[in-house]
C-alpha cells in the first residue's frame, strides 16, 4: 500500500498532505502521531455526556489537526460536531443525531488508525 492508496482508502487529500509535509515518511510520521495522541479518547469522553464546551473543544482540536493532515472525510465529520457545539450557536441536531454523527467520526478515525497501522506494517 502506498501513501497515496492509504489516503484514498481513508478519504484523504493526498495532494494536500504532500504539499504540507513534502515526503511520505513525514506524512506517515504525523499520521502516527495523530493515532498515538489519543485525540479520539477526549472526544469519546465528551461524547458520553455531550457537555457542549468539552464537545466543542475536543471536536475543534481534532478537526484542526485532521484538516492540516489532509484527512478530509474525518475533518468534515468532526467539523460538523464542532459547528453543532460552537459557543453561541443554536444546536441543530438532537442528541441521538449527534451520537450517530459521533459514531461516524469514530468509524472514520478507526479507518485512519487501521490504515496507518497497515501502512506501517508494510513499510
Amino acid at each position: 500500500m502506498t501513501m497515496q492508496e492509504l489516503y484514498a482508502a481513508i478519504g484523504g487529500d493526498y495532494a494536500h498532505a504532500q504539499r504540507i509535509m513534502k515526503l511520505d515518511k513525514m506524512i506517515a510520521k504525523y499520521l502516527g502521531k495523530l493515532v498515538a495522541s489519543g485525540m479520539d479518547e477526549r472526544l469519546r469522553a465528551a461524547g458520553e455526556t455531550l457537555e457542549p464546551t468539552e464537545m466543542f473543544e475536543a471536536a475543534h482540536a481534532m478537526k484542526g489537526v485532521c484538516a492540516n493532515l489532509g484527512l478530509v472525510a474525518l475533518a468534515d465529520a468532526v467539523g460538523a460536531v464542532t459547528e453543532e457545539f460552537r459557543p453561541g450557536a443554536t444546536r441543530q441536531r438532537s442528541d441521538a443525531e449527534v451520537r450517530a454523527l459521533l459514531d461516524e467520526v469514530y468509524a472514520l478515525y478507526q479507518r485512519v488508525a487501521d490504515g496507518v497501522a497497515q501502512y506501517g506494517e508494510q513499510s
Partner: protein
Amino acid sequence: MMMVRKLKRRPLVLVVDDQEINRDLLGMILADEYEVAFAEHGEQALQILRERHQTVSLVLLDLMMPVMDGFEVLRQMREAPELARVPVIVLTADKSAELKALQMGAADFVTKPFDLPEVILARVARIVELAERREVILATERDPLTHLYTRSYFLEYVEQILASHPDYRMDAVVIDIERFHALNDLNGREYGDTVLRALAAAILEFLDSTDGIACRIEPDRFDIFCRHRDDYQAVLDHFEAKMTALSGRATVLLRMGVKPWREGVAPLVMFDRARVACNMLRGNAQTHLMVFDDEMHQREVYRQRLLNDLRPALEERQFIVYYQPKFNILCDPPRLSSSEALIRWKHPEFGMVSPGEFIPLFETHGCIHLIDDYVWKEAARQVAAWRDEFGVVVPASVNLSRSDLFDPTLRERLSQLVRDYDLEPRHLKLEVTESAYTDDPAQLAASLSALRALGFEIEMDDFGSGYSSLNMLSTLPIDVLKMDMKFIQNVGADKKSFRLVELIIDIARYLQVPVVAEGVETAEQISLLRSAGCKLVQGYYFSKPLPAEEFAKMIQKELVLEKETVS
C-alpha cells in the same frame, strides 16, 4: 568576505498552538528560514514573550486554545509596550475571528487548514520584514533615552505640521541645561540621564496641553515646536520646578530661548534664532528666558558678518595695530618705557569696529588665535623695525588669550616669532587677563612658568577687575601687575579709592612685582600714583593708542630728550 546575511541572526518565530501536530507542521515549514520556539497555550506564550521579547520577531498564534486563548494573548500584548512591538499572525479556520483578531492588533492571518507552505512562508517573511523596518524607523525616530524625536525626524515632522496646518502659528523653543557636563561629572552619568529623562517627561506633559512636538537635538539641549503662546516664563517655571523636585542632590538650571512665530521664517531659521537667544543666557544667574526679537536679530546678523569677514580682513590687512605708550613716572620728566599693542579693525563697511565687539565674539567662536597671531607678528615686526631705525628697543606687550595659554605649541610659536625678528623674548611682553586664572590655575601657572623660562615677561592684565585673589598673586609667576583702570578713575575723588590703590601697590612691592596703572588721564592721578610709589603708567594723560608712524615720532622725541638729559 563574509556575507551580511550569514552574520545576521535568523529571526525567531514563536508558534503558539495547543496541538502538537500543528506546532510540528508549522515548525517544519519554518525551520529552513527561522529559529522556531513553541508554546502550547496563551499563558506559556506570554511567559516566553516576556522573557525573550527582544529576540522574538513574530508570533504565529492559534486562537482557540485551553488555559488562555489567542484573543487574550493579543489583548495582553497590546497592553504591554515591550510586547506590542512583536507582530502576530493568527492561525484560524474561522472567518469571523479574522476581523476581530485584526482589530485587536494582529498583523495578518493564516487560514486553517494550512495553505501552501510557500504562502505561509511568504506571509511570515512579509510581516517580519515590515516589523523589522518599523523597528528601524522607531529606533531612529526616537531618542532611546528620552523617547522624544531625534533631530532628523523632528525636522521632518515640523515641515509636515506646517504643510498640513498652514494656519497654525508655531513657536520655536530651545531649552538647554546649564553646565550639564559639570552636572554629569559631579553626580555621575546615571544622574545626568535621570535629569534628561525628567526634563523630557516635563516637556511631553507640556505638549499634552498644546499642539506640538519635541526632540533632544543635542545631549543636553531640547527643541520644541509648539502653538504660539505668551506665557513661556510660566512654562519654564514649571519645568524648573520639576527639576527642583527631582532631587536635592544638585541644582539643575535651565535656559530657554524662544523665537515666536513670524510668517515666512523657515523653521530651521526659527530654531537658529531661538538657539541664539538661549545662548545669550549662558552664565546669567538671574534670567533664564530670552525671547528673540528684531534687535537681537540685527545684532546676530552683524555678529555673523564679523565672523564671516574675519579671514578676508586678515588677508586684506584691515586690522591695524596701535601702540599705547607706558611711561615710567618715577623719572622726571617721565620716560617712555614700553607700549601695549592694541588691535583696531577698519572694516570697509562698518568703519572702525571696537575690539570690545569682535574680541569676545572671536573668543567664543574659537578663532581668536587668528587675531593673536596677527598682533604678535605685527608687534614683533614693528619693534624690530623701530630698533633698526632708531637703535633702541621699545618692548611691546601683546595679549595672550585663554585658548593660547592651553595651546601646547604656544612656546614654540612665540620662540620662533622672536627668532624671526632677531628679538629677545623680553622685548615681547605677554599680557594675561586675570580671569584666565579661574579656568585651570595649575595649568595656567605651568604654562606661564614655561614661557618665563624662555625669557618672556608676563604681565597680569586687568588686576582687580574680576576674580582677584592674593593666592593668585602668590602662585602665578608674573613680572608685572597691571592695575585695572577702575581703581584709577576714582583715585582723586575719595580717600578710600586712593587707599586701595596704595594697598595694591604695597602688595605688589612686597611680591617684588612692579605695577602698571592703566587708564590714567589727569595730572592729579599721576601725582597720587607717584606718591604711592607706582612706577609705570599708561593712559590718555600721556597718549591715546597711536598708529605705528605716530608712535615712531614719540620714540624720536624720547631720543631727543635722552640726548638733552645726557648733555
